[in-house]
């Protein structure tokens, strides 16, 4: 098993932003909840490496704390998707063709059929804009992704000999799913989880951009972009840095996802040999 260049580069980018988020709990260059109007719209300098925004807040500090918001929202959203989607997918596969399978999979189709961002906007518009509601909205759309993935993989596993052996030895579908199917789809889940994680960060940025994600004073990359809009023409650094943060994080996660798939997916591994 050799890690690819993708994995290294992706892992590095992801690590940088995760580290920034972790460090921000203990230390940031400037307090992001304090405004210093006198120091507004400064261009990058030694005191403020990435400049300051229209309220005089340090952009580097805001990106660090914003990383926290993005990562937290994305992790929890992917967590919701996995926690609900994986059992649903396992159950659907265990009872293939039954009414349960139909209900679960058609329900998934229903969620899939909606444009996810529009529904997320609707949810936050109805229940109020907040980071929590953004998490729920993004999380809901992760459920069918994982349910489908797991069901598809599990279906092929159910025909395998070791599952047959487990059935013969008298194990019920719940135990087989938990002990034999789930461990064999973990690799897939890690890969898909990484991809969904990057999509979650994008979705959070999009929701914040339209004002429906994390609310002030909590910094968020999407809102930094939105705030920068009218000033972008004369202070480009306001939009460039949060934009780069989003771009690099998402790029990093996608590269890492690709790399992990190359590394973990047994089918691909065999093909490469």
């Amino acid at each position, binding site marked *: 098993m050799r890690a690819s260049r993708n994995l290294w580069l992706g892992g590095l980018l992801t690590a940088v932003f995760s580290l920034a988020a972790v460090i921000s709990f203990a230390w940031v260059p400037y307090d992001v909840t304090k405004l210093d109007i006198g120091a507004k719209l400064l261009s990058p300098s030694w005191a403020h490496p990435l400049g300051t925004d229209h309220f005089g807040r340090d952009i580097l500090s805001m990106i660090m704390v914003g990383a926290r918001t993005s990562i937290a929202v994305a992790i929890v959203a992917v967590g919701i998707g996995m926690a609900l989607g994986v059992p649903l997918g396992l159950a659907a596969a265990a009872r293939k063709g039954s009414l349960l399978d139909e209900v679960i999979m058609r329900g998934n189709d229903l969620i899939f059929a909606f444009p996810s961002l529009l529904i997320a906007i609707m949810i936050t518009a109805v229940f109020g804009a907040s980071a929590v509601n953004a998490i729920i909205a993004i999380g809901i759309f992760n459920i069918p992704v994982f349910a489908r993935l797991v069901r598809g993989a599990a279906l092929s596993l159910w025909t395998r000999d070791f599952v047959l052996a487990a059935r013969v030895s008298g194990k019920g579908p719940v135990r087989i799913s938990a002990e034999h199917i789930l461990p064999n789809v973990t690799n897939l889940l890690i890969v898909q989880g990484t991809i969904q994680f990057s999509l979650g960060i994008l979705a959070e940025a999009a929701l914040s951009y339209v*004002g429906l994600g994390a609310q002030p004073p909590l910094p968020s990359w999407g809102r930094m972009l939105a705030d920068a809009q*009218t000033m972008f023409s004369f202070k480009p650094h306001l939009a460039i840095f949060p934009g780069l943060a989003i771009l690099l994080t998402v790029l990093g996660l996608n590269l890492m996802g690709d790399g992990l798939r190359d590394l973990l997916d047994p089918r691909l591994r065999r093909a490469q040999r």
Partner: protein
Amino acid sequence: MKLMKFAAASALAMTVAGGALAKTDITLAMQLEPPHLDPTSAAAGAIDSVLYSNVFEGLTRFAEDGSIQPGLARSWEISDDGLTYTFTLAEGVTFHDGTAMDSEDVKFSLDRARAEDSANAQKALFDSIASVEAVDAQTVKLTLSEPNGSMLFNLAWGDAVIVAPESIENIKQQPVGTGAFTFEDWVQGDSITLKRNEDYWGEAPALEEVNFKFISDPTAGFAAMMAEDVDVFAGYPAPENIPQFEADPRFQVIVGNTEGETILSTNNKMSPFDNVKVRRAMAHAIDRQAIIDGAMFGLGTPIGTHFAPHHPDYVDLTGMSDYDPEKARALLAEAGFEDGFETTLKLPPPSYARRGGEIIAAQLREVGIETEISNLEWAQWLEQVFKGKDYGLTIVSHTEPFDIGIYARPDYYFQYDSAEFQEMNAALSAESDPEKRSALLEDMQRLIAEDAVNGYLFQLAIPTIAKAGVRGLWENAPTQANDMTGVYWEE
């Protein structure tokens, strides 16, 4: 043959465009769209921004400098006891639907506005009118229950315009007035078109067509202006872009005064704001200059009370609520909130509110007051805050002229109930001696500053961006209006 015709036509078109004829249409953008088109039954200033003086006229009208000029009433006489006003109406005035405008219409309009079940947003303007009498077709007599020094001023408001009983039914969609422009079309969510009224009784306007375009997003507004899709942006929402327009020879920037006292409205009936110490503490926690610089990029004049600084009776009371976080903390501790408290801060869309809100939230946090910010659309704001009074704090600009009287209304959304102030206000209405009025006004300004009813932030300035060739726009906004009757293009 067809081709020739086309060539000839385009040649003609080119000569017209290239000739000395000035443009006769204009597109004016503003941020807010009116909810409907009846200025006499809603508080929304956007209605007046489109219709005041263009489509609807009152007996008197505001001029650009805030002075009161004759409107449909060409002259008037006031009896010595100040109780009877006799107005002589302009002759030959017709509504846009062709019906004549006479004293019966004036009586109808004023009686409708002051009726028990009237939906007028400024009913208090008509409180002192006891009766309206149509003496003859051209003469109207107003009898007051008590002398009212501001009657002529009150009648100039957009809420007091003259409407016709024949067209009142559909006024919200099809406004029919007497003004120099007729209502043509309303594409909801986009624009309203007005056309020149060829039968106008007064001086005909230079413009033949006026398009009001509604662009709520500041970025889209900037793009539309830069692309010259719109000719004028009244109340340009992104003050940070003004230097760019100033540097561009295609545009002119006009920064004028408004009657907009921008305040941190406080729900005076809600705990802990029912405690005057808490309100005073907040007043000291707020750094006005930081808000003006941060939210408005320097546009705006600090105020210490609910009164326009360009008004002769204004008293500068900003010193009573100077920025002093230490004092604010001490006052909070005195009131029993050493550890601060939490409240809601509901913000309508304008940038003074959204940005100002973030700055105020940070300043209040400094003294221990945590605010939960929620951004509302105007309709939600009117419903929840203005009507429902379901809020702790909000930021809004009160753009009505000379509106200190709202503090005498305990049911107004900030729910300030002071018998002392109400007495003063009653005394002011009855007083016509200018010196005594000034003294009373000063006392009133002082009282609300002392009670720290609301956080008084700054007087809103109105930046208007226009193409360089546009002339005759109002610089100041004595009332919410875009009077297009005097606007023209200079070659």
